[in-house]
């Protein structure tokens, strides 16, 4: 399965995703420059963390209108998969590929810390290897990660099972104190209606090796690999 890691000016998790895909997952991976529109030779596009275009205006606002992101709509329509983490999630929301928006953390400060995520939907290609209620440990690192969606969008997210991860305690309880940024309903990650685009604020690439303190991030990649290999969707494209 072929991965493409997008590099915007100001992206900094690009090398980390590249390393995890090539050295840990042992899958083919390449960098995609933000000006490229050609996504024909990849199965999954990764939008990594960082401060794309300096996050000027709003986090992800400029990148959300970049050539590569403009090409993503078509890529997704053709059955491609997209994983956006941190700044990548912000970009996906700015581009309208995912509902909602990410606002400044409630504490008004940057937060880099370990978080626990409780899994809510395992019917997506990114989560099918997980159990409902399973708790994943992976870190966050952001200043603007407070998820917000209006009442209509939230109702739709709930109805369609698009809420995939919520911040929780180590035991899986969704509590106010376990919510590191004030996200609406502790939402940490959502998918599009088809389940083929995942955005989350935490960093799965920082939780992909025992030396980094957790390997739970790998479960997301492995679910995706399993999904695409098993149903052959990466062969169809």
């Amino acid at each position: 399965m072929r991965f493409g890691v997008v590099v915007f000016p100001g992206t900094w998790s690009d090398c980390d995703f590249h390393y995890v895909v090539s050295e840990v997952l042992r899958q083919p991976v390449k960098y995609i420059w933000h000006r490229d529109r050609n996504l024909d030779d990849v199965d999954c596009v990764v939008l990594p963390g960082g401060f794309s275009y300096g996050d000027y205006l709003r986090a992800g606002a400029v990148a959300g209108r970049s050539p590569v992101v403009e090409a993503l709509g078509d890529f997704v329509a053709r059955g491609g998969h997209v994983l956006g983490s941190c700044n990548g999630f912000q970009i996906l929301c700015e581009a309208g590929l995912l509902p909602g928006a990410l606002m400044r953390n409630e504490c008004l400060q940057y937060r880099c810390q370990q978080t626990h995520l409780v899994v809510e939907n395992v019917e997506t290609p990114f989560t099918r290897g997980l159990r409902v209620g399973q708790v994943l440990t992976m870190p966050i690192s952001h200043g603007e990660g407070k998820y917000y969606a209006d009442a209509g969008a939230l109702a739709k997210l709930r109805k369609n099972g698009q809420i995939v991860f919520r911040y929780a305690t180590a035991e899986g309880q969704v509590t106010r104190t376990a919510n590191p940024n004030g996200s609406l309903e502790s939402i940490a990650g959502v998918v599009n209606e088809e389940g083929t685009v995942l955005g989350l604020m935490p960093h799965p690439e920082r939780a992909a090796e025992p030396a980094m303190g957790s390997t739970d991030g790998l479960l997301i990649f492995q679910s995706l690999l399993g999904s695409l290999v098993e149903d052959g969707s990466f062969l169809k494209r």
Partner: protein
Amino acid sequence: MTGSEPKATPDLARELGLTADEYDRIIKRLGREPTYTELGLFSALWSEHCAYKHSRVFLARLPQTGPHVLQGPGENAGVVDIGDGWAVVFKIESHNHPSFIEPFQGAATGVGGILRDIFTMGARPIALLDSLRFGEPDDPKTRRLIEGVVSGISWYGNCFGCPTVGGEIAFAPEYAGNPLVNVMCVGLVRADRIFRARAEGVGNPVFYVGNKTGRDGIHGATMASSTFDERAEERRPTVQVGDPFTEKLLLEACLELMQTGAVVGIQDMGAAGLACCTSEMPARAGTGMEVELSRVPRREIEMTPYEILLSESQERMLLVVARGREEEVRRVFAKWELDAVEIGQVTGDGDLTVRHHGEIAARLPVKALAEAPRYEKPTAPPPWMAELRAFDPLTLPEPADYEEALLAVLGSPTIGSKEWAFRQYDQQVGINTLVLPGSDAAVLRVKGTRRALAISTDGNGRQVFLHPRRGAAMAVCEAARNVSCAGGRPLGVTDCLNFGSPERPEILWQFAEAIDGLAEACRALDLPVVGGNVSFYNETNGQAVLPTPIVGVVGVLEEAGRAATQWFKGAGHRLALLGPDAVSLGGSEYLWTLHRRLAGALAPLDLGLERRVQSAVQAAIGTELVLSAHDCAEGGLAVAVAEGCVTGRELVGGSVTLPEGARADLTLFGEGPSRVVVSVDPARVLEFEGLMAESAIPWCWIGTTGSERLRVRCGSTTVIDAAIESLEQAWRRGFERHLA
């Protein structure tokens, strides 16, 4: 010469920070009066900040060479070989003065400046550490400084994408008017791909790359070379404004261009901006340089040659490129959407020739600019020194309740958890950080090898104040010991020397003594000083900071997977104390926290023993004989043990028995060098004892881990029996409670 500019006079020279003697010297050297622009060049390049006028003769006493040293002082940063074809580039620098005037931008551009020093050498920055000193945090003004400095560091480092993995924050009233913001950066480079700041090759084009030039930071170097008074805030325009996004682009563009082989020399435009680069780069190579200022990308109109040369606008570099490779430079910088403009060339005449629209604005021998006067001003020990050291802390009453005393010391802002600051810093980007902030040293793996780096910064101003020589030596020992406690073998040192005005004999005496202490300790531990920074004039209204040399040490672990941390790993492990018994309450955290006294004598320092203790700790970690290792530093043995209990992911109690004899507060809270607490799996006790016997160091078993309490006995008397949760609360809230 440009007509509309003021004429250079001795008065103008003095206003720009040059003495009458220095002005005479310039006239003698040139054989004529300088132009206004030329005077500006001298004032910046002969400032203390750029020229180390008062410190250079002393700095020469530091050991600067060693078998691993690939680059010593004199370049943008030092370089040490770590094996497998890799080298580590590192340096620490101060941004004290700007951070006091404008804490957010002052600290942010401090981070930006040190990052550029590292990637100028061709290295990718992989770690930042911040050594911060403030006044007591219950003062609202200090709180504002803390919040500004921490958010400035957070903003710049996080956006740029270099993790902040360590450092320390300490408090003393002497820093209230002059906080210290010292930032260390570490980068990785292939040992055969190091770049230097030399303008080689007559005829090679000179490129200006990066951010545009504005009027910010003009005379920043001169500002950093004087003391403050009540009007310090009027100097805000001398503080630069940072843009970490542009810095990130500059990093990627520079590293990409370096891969092509087109770069001959490169220097960051830091203090004294373009003036510094255009004179230092040819001075190092024995060449000259000519530049045309009208080509310099600017963001303000009608800037004078003086302003363009002395602007300290951030995120800019000067490149010397191989003639014929100009297109590659333009292509790479265009890709990253940055300016890259050819502004001149390397010449063979030894002069810096500056033109503005073709007209000569300055023409000076680069050697004249590079050869600032060197002073060896008088030194004299402060008269109050002897009395201060003669104070015996044991004349103070013993605390009624030792548990209360431990809670107070553990909960002091200096010792308490710094999570409030560190959670605002990205600590992991790059996925190298094996040991996060909160242990003795940060540990980062070197991908593609089995190795890891252990990094620590340290410096105890109180100890240096009481005994500059021994205190400075102890700072080297402690930073190196921290690295050893993570399992690293220390390889090299960078130092940031923060002092008051060198024009006062007692301050210069502190400085000279501290240098001798640093030199002695570095020699004894085989640690070359490969770079660093001197920051003088840290005083406001005549009140100098505590003399504070901050020492950064980088070490290497052969096996990344064996890195040790300071916290206890579970119940039933044996606890041992390695090192000497000798401790003192003089200058201790205990004495300050409980009695608000800074006085007394320091414990003795035996550098040979220090070295043996560190070797023993490294060997014990390298053979996996210990489960944790923690240096006894501020707060003494009691705090070291308590930190073992409460700083890990799980709380672990302990039971410790210490020898009777001395007063219990001395035993518990006395501070002294060369002491390390380790925990040992009971199954490995015999092996551990064998290793200790071979190491020829004093050591003893002091207790075991386990239970929900920390119990400490001195002889048969129980002096502390505290619930672990209460200790944890005190430690966790110690600093943060002042900010909420």
